[in-house]
């Protein structure tokens, strides 16, 4: 067998699964002692260009509470045409269509390379995708114009048969009817009054009026045109909608001096949700909300319209001074849950210089798998590109989005499911393999993920069942099956089944094996997700303390050291990077609120809990490349020592892309050497990071903030705040040396952090 490294990589490529441990401890106690739980990052719709879907229904285990899907791990009796479920050991006959089965004629799902397989199934009539735009009109003229253009452009990106709808809001909420000729018609709702879904449908004329008719007239068949008046196929209303968008005006209500415009975001969303709920429940639909400021009235209000009262800050929140916070959050949570139940998702595109209330609204996207994009203005490429990229297509020319996903996890008997962390909600599906010990969103074996993209990744947490005195016998394998049902963007219903297994190992005798099976990258992300999940409900310092404790325990468990001798401390290669990840995680905006507004934190966390492992790691520990005349571009330590005058640095933090020109380079550039033919090499040097950055920008979603700065530039702060402050004003010895640039911070450097860690890990007092 290859190295674990290769094994891990292979598993990820094939199944989109990365476990924290690739050997599992055989009892619960031992699992607990490993500190990092048995868990995995699972990317349900990982792009598999090499995996053609099969066109038939999966074969299910006939046991009612099992229903596991036939997979390569099952034992098959070809002669008897019977297979044994590897989860419940039920023996099942093959269905009649499998009559021709034999060991040379096996269906795909039995072949080992199809541990992940995708079925296309026929379930009901195909329903088109639905895109409902919810547009804030309280924007500056310039912003609105840009937004209108983006929206018009997006019409050409939508699948032609997709249904599209438009709701605009400001002081009032307008639901635009798209089918009518002549006069543009819209239904208007007060921005302050909460309406039930039924009321909304009545007011939109979506319910059958005859049903409540006084004369008890026969109920006329529902008019399909009426149902769809607000949601029309793109190809039909293309022109209409383009005109309509073109004619969108800024909210016509005057905004007095010293006031914010009245923005009924809460009601607008509630109406959007209600509209879809009534017309297309359980059909893939995206509510795309574009807003340029915080909700200022009605339910879901985040801040009043008085400009003199600023929107809540972390300071207000900790002082419990944010009046609207709880109420608004509660409101949006309820709304998000309703949306999730209907299988729709909500995207938030918030572009404003100030906060827009993402803190309160984040759950809308978090629970429904929607996107959040945050920018300064709709008139920036950041927004435009991000928005455009929502509609990007894969190698098959299909949209990189899927809807109405449900993820079901089945485990073999030795394992139970504790929970999941990611853009999902519980479906409250009870089953035998649910752990009482809940981690993240638990208590269920099924989760709903209303909207999925190929990168959507969930962290799944498991628990070993067996008690210490009755460990799992050696040589066995534990199995986990992930069954993901979803609506493909081409409206097909599909089921993707991933079945993985790992060996059990005795933690006492095989601790080395277990240690070497440790996936420190996955573990870092998994622990980080736990931390972030906790941070949503707990005080920041508590979370940090918890993380520290976990790290120390891990080091104690796996470090090699002499008691009370920090200098003797050593970590094996498989854990060597882990403390560093933790160091950067502690400094990251996911856990640090300093320097980040509540909205920004919400935004960062939103992306953190859904991106795949690579992206997550970048978020935890940004990547830094260095460009110089001394050689080809190279990755360098994320350390202040890497900031040198004759280098160009390219930092990717996922959210930002910073190009930093060292002092000398900046001077050269200012002097214009790159324009001179004899300095063409300098020109190339300057261009190189730009090209690389461009490459990253091409693929990244959401589009990162692109920053081109230089030594001493104000924007350099993005870089300086990320690097390890190995040189600061506190350790002056480094001043003026060529080894880097000092950072003006009181934050501890990695060096100090490690020293402390070692001290604590070896301490016998702990």
């Amino acid at each position, binding site marked *: 067998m290859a190295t674990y490294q290769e094994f891990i990589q292979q598993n990820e490529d094939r199944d989109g699964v990365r476990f924290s441990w690739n050997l599992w401890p055989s009892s619960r106690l031992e699992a607990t002692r490993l500190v990092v739980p048995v868990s995995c990052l699972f990317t349900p719709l990982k792009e598999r260009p090499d995996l053609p879907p099969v066109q038939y229904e999966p074969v299910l285990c006939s046991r009612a509470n099992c229903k596991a899907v036939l997979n390569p791990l099952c034992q098959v009796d070809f002669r008897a045409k019977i297979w044994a479920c590897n989860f419940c050991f039920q023996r099942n006959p093959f269905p009649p269509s499998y009559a021709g089965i034999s060991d040379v004629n096996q269906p795909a799902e039995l072949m080992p390379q199809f541990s992940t397989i995708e079925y296309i199934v026929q379930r009901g009539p195909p329903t088109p995708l639905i895109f409902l735009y919810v547009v804030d009109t309280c924007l500056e003229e310039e912003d609105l114009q840009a937004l209108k253009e983006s929206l018009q452009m997006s019409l050409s990106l939508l699948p032609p048969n997709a249904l599209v709808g438009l709701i605009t809001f400001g002081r009032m909420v307008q639901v635009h009817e798209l089918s009518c000729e002549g*006069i543009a018609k819209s239904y208007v709702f007060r921005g302050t009054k909460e309406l039930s879904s039924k009321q909304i449908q009545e007011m939109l004329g979506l319910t059958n009026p005859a049903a409540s008719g006084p004369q008890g007239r026969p109920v006329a068949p529902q008019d399909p045109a009426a149902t769809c008046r607000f949601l029309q196929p793109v190809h039909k209303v293309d022109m209409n909608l383009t005109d309509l968008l073109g004619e969108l005006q800024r909210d016509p209500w005057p905004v007095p001096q010293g006031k914010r415009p009245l923005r009924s975001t809460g009601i607008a969303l509630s109406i959007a949700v209600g509209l879809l709920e009534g017309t297309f429940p359980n059909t893939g639909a995206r509510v795309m909300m574009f807003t340029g400021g915080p909700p200022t009235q009605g339910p879901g209000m985040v801040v009043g319209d008085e400009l003199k009262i600023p929107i809540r800050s972390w300071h207000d929140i900790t002082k419990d001074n944010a009046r609207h916070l709880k109420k608004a959050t509660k409101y949006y949570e309820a709304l998000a849950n309703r949306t999730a139940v209907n299988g729709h998702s909500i995207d938030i595109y918030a572009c404003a210089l100030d906060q827009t209330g993402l803190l309160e609204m984040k759950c809308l996207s978090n629970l429904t798998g929607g996107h959040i994009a945050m920018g300064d203005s709709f008139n920036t490429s950041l927004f435009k590109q991000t928005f455009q990229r929502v509609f990007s297509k894969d190698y098959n020319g299909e949209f990189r989005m899927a809807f109405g996903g449900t993820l079901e996890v089945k485990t073999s008997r030795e394992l139970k499911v504790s929970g999941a962390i990611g853009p999902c909600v519980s479906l409250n599906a009870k089953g035998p393999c649910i752990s009482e010990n809940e981690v993240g969103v638990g208590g269920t074996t099924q989760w709903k993920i209303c909207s999925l993209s190929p990168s959507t990744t969930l962290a799944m947490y498991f628990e070993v069942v067996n008690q210490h005195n009755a460990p799992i016998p050696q040589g066995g394998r534990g199995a986990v099956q992930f069954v993901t049902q979803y609506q493909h963007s081409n409206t097909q219903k599909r089921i993707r089944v991933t079945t993985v297994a790992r060996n059990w190992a005795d933690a006492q005798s095989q601790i080395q094996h277990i240690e070497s099976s440790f996936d420190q990258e996955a573990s870092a992300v998994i622990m980080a997700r736990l931390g972030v999940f906790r941070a949503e409900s707990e005080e920041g310092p508590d979370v940090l303390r918890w993380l520290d404790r976990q790290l120390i325990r891990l080091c104690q468990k796996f470090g090699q050291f002499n008691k009370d001798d920090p200098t003797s401390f050593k970590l094996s290669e498989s854990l060597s990077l882990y403390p560093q990840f933790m160091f950067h995680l502690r400094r990251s905006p996911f856990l640090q609120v300093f320097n980040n507004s509540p909205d920004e934190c919400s935004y960062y966390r939103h992306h953190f809990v859904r991106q795949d492992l690579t992206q997550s790691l970048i978020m935890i520990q940004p990547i830094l490349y260095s460009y110089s005349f001394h050689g080809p571009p190279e990755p360098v330590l994320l350390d202040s020592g890497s900031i040198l005058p004759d280098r160009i640095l390219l930092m990717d933090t996922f959210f930002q892309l910073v190009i930093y020109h060292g002092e000398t380079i900046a001077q050269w550039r200012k002097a214009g050497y790159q324009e001179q033919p004899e300095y063409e090499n300098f020109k190339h040097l300057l261009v190189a990071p730009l090209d690389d950055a461009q490459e990253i920008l091409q693929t990244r979603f959401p589009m990162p903030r692109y920053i081109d700065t230089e030594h001493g530039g104000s924007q350099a702060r993005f870089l300086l705040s990320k690097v390890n402050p190995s040189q600061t004003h506190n350790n002056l010895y480094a001043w003026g040396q060529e080894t880097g640039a000092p950072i003006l911070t009181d934050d501890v450097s990695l060096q100090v952090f490690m020293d402390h860690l070692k001290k604590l890990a070896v301490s016998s007092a702990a």
Partner: protein
Amino acid sequence: MNVNQQPPMASPYGQPQPGYGQPNYAPLGGGYPGPYGPYNGPATAYQPGAPPQGYCTYASFPSKAVAANPVSALSSPLDLGPPLPLSPPPVSTPQAYSQYAQGDIQNGPPSMDHSMAQPAHRPPVSQLYSQGAMNLSGPQPSYPQQYGVQPPMQQVTNQMSGMQIGSGPLTSAGPGYAPPPSSQPPISAAYSAAAPPSYTQAPPPVSGSPSQPPPSHQPRAPAVSQQQSFPPGPPPPAQQPFPNSAPPPQQANHLPPGPIQQPPMQQPPQPGMQGGYPPQQNGAFGQPVGPQTGYAGPQYPGQQNYGAGPAPAPAQKRLDPDSIPSPIQVIEDDRANKSSEPFTTGVKGQTPPLVTTNFQVKDQGNASPRFIRCTAYNMPCTADMAKQSQVPLAAVIKPLAVLPPDETLPYIVDHGEAGPIRCNRCKAYMCPYMQFIEGGRRFQCGFCSCVTEVPPHYFQHLDHTGKRVDCYDRPELSLGSYEFVATVDYCKNNKLPQPPAFVFFIDVSYNAVKSGMVNIVCQELKTLLDYLPRENPEADSVVRVGFVTYNKVLHFYNVKSSLAQPQMMVVSDVSDMFLPLLDGFLVNVNDSRMVIESLLDQIPEMFEDTRETETVFGPVIQAGLEALKAADCAGKLFVFHSSLPIAEAPGKLKNREDKKLVGTDKEKSLFQPQSGFYSNLSKECVAQGCCVDLFLFPNQYVDVATLGVVPVSTGGSVYKYTYFQAETDREQFLNDLRRDVQKPMGFDAVMRVRTSTGIRATDFFGSFFMSNTTDVELAGLDCDKTVTVEFRHDDKLSEDTGALMQCAVLYTSCSGQRRLRVHNMAVNCCSQLADLYRNCETDTIINFISKYAYRNILNTPTKTVRDTMVNQCAQILACYRKNCASPSSAGQLILPECMKLLPVYLNCVLKSDVLQPGADISLDDRAYLRQLLSCMDVSESHIFFYPRLLPLVKLDGGSLPMAVRNSEERLSKGGVYLLETGLHLFLWVGANAQQELLSNIFGTPTFSQIDPNMTSLPELDNPFSQRLREIIDSFRSQRSRYMKLMVVKQEDKAELIFKHYLCEDKSVSGGASYVDFLCHMHKEIRQLLS
């Protein structure tokens, strides 16, 4: 005259003049023709009576113009004279007398002469005596032809004693006769028995004389006869008697005190003088009644002396309708007497001409009667008197009335930044009643007597009479009506107002679309929007407009000028109405013309196929209110609505039409709104200055009582087009709409009536809202709306100062300016009941009484309301009889001259659809009429209760044919009649109408070929047709609502509807005929007296 009365009357009369009457009578009867001649003589003699009038110098007389200069001259002195009745007679006597040898009655004759010679004289005379005499004189002039008739009228009024019946007829019947009789009756009327006779007589002569004094004599008789069947035989006699008796009486009449004494004197002479006459009169009253009833004349006399004899006879017989007071007669008299000269308002306490008379007004310090009409121009000094008489004290105020082109609009006065000058205490505005003292440094308030400093910028020196030197340069010091420019202190929130806005709400439910209403409204609005009200005809209107359509949801339209197409915004959250857009909803017509036209073109198309039948109503008003609130302006909502709002929404109504409740004690609940929702809503509307006009197009019950709450409380109007059909009702609706949109109006108005110490405005009627007891708040006030104010004493008034009232209306003009219109009115005060009765205005009293009654049916069973009215009128008349009329038999019905039409009009009110509905009258109709009346002015209420019936005989010349009384008896099978009710026009075609007439009107000579469904007459090129259409047009232009024309063929089904308006007849629903009612009234009075 009433038959009933006759018997009694007879006796009374009989006694006093038993021999008298009878003897006379006989002769008269016999010698009618003969007497006639003499009659004239006597008549003239009566005229002398006129002089007595002169004494009176009452306004009424003058109005008649008959008062003629000479007389007036005399009269004026006479006025003083009342006490000295003699003097007047002399006056007349001198001239006339000579002519009339017999004229012991000299006065009469002379007057006649005068009239002949100088008609002017007479008028003055008449003026002098407002009372019975006045009337007499009035009628007479007008009557010239119907000489007799008029007199009777007067008499009647004066003395409706049993005899009077006769008198009534007399008036109408025998012109010639009448005069004489009238003269007598008046006398009696005016003063106690004796006096009245003289009175009436006197006037008649006057009238007669003026019109055709000399010639009249002869002509009269004939004329009379021509006009009415009655005149023939009996009249003459009557006349004669009258003259005789009359003359003397007249004198008596004039002078209450004196008269009494004189009467005897006179009477004797009369009989003696004109043996014939008396008999006639008697005859008229009594026996003649039948035959001679026509003879007003006879009756008249009858009243006084004659009565006795004749009365008995008539009593038994059916009372002759011609013998009872005729509205037509009174109207014609007034027209003849008062239309020629301008009515100047300078003199306090003058009764203005009747509303049916065309006259010009000159403002000389009191408000024009077009703005204010009072029930009494001589108010009782004390509350006791007022209570005793039961005459309501009220003013019908039409603050923004439109004036004819020959009268100037109220001047606009600007007192600068400090605002109008006002009394410090009662806050009355500067007006002619403020007395400047201390060399002009201060002024004393005429209302509360408080002394206020004159601000320096307003100071002016006084002349030797104590008047300010600039008195005539300043409208507020010399005129009755004017406007102040209001300062910001008079504005809401101390902010100058925004220009008002009009919002149109069009029902687009199935019924509305199907009836064609939606289409018509949209088409019409396209042009109508160019005629929004404006103050400067040159400039564009600043009124902004907005559009909403609705069924059970509301559709607002964004018609911003920058849009290529209008945008529709649907608000379906009707439970909690709000305005979906601000910018682009209310727009300037010129800016957004293209978008608006496009919208109006598209609305009918959009809802062409609608199947929505349910509507809302409350949210519609709320939406308009919100729109005006958001725009921070006042304005008007035009709501075009079709059906009962049963859709789920605030203000939802249920069908509660229940005919079984009609006539029960629960009936009143049907007039009350179903819920408090609309009352509350209207409060909000008023606070914002949101006036609502409602156009209803119902096919079934819509609950006008409830839907009308908001319009009625906000100063708006309700229009109702039941079973609206585009083809036939289009014109009516469009004309109403055009007028409603264009008419001058004020917004966000507050009206307050201040009065002299001693009386107080206590009750208000009309379309408005009151949040306290003094301020009348009107979200909108248009030129057709009146507010009726009732006054009560809270102290004594003084005869010296009279009673003053000042009506101030603060409003926002259609150009958005804040204005303050002030109307001042001064009336006399009296300590004698007789003065009160001489100076009231029956039309106004009826206007008030009906409003009062119509409001009371909200809280009181209808029957009680009716009884109360009858009772009140009986008390009014009984009080007169008891305190003012000369003593006579209880059987005599004696009516004050000014109120002789009270019974007939009252009967019309009692029989009106609201108070006594027929089976075919829906609850909605009643509620609609009830609300409609509440803001009618006097001329509208007059025609509403007593429609005008014109025989279309000869339509040459500029004048209208004389109307005839509203009775089927007056219709000739061979004629064509035009009936105007104020709301409808009927063209009644007799079954035997001449072919020529039919051809002229309809273009077809055959009765059967006339299409009864036509709503307009064919435009034929013949003078008759042209004239007829002119007449119809002119009628329509006089009314605030367009009257749809209905052609009614005799014997046709539709004739029932027409007959409904013949209000002197018995009605199908059980209303009494005039004659019956008069008898009933008489009985009531007698009961009160005994």
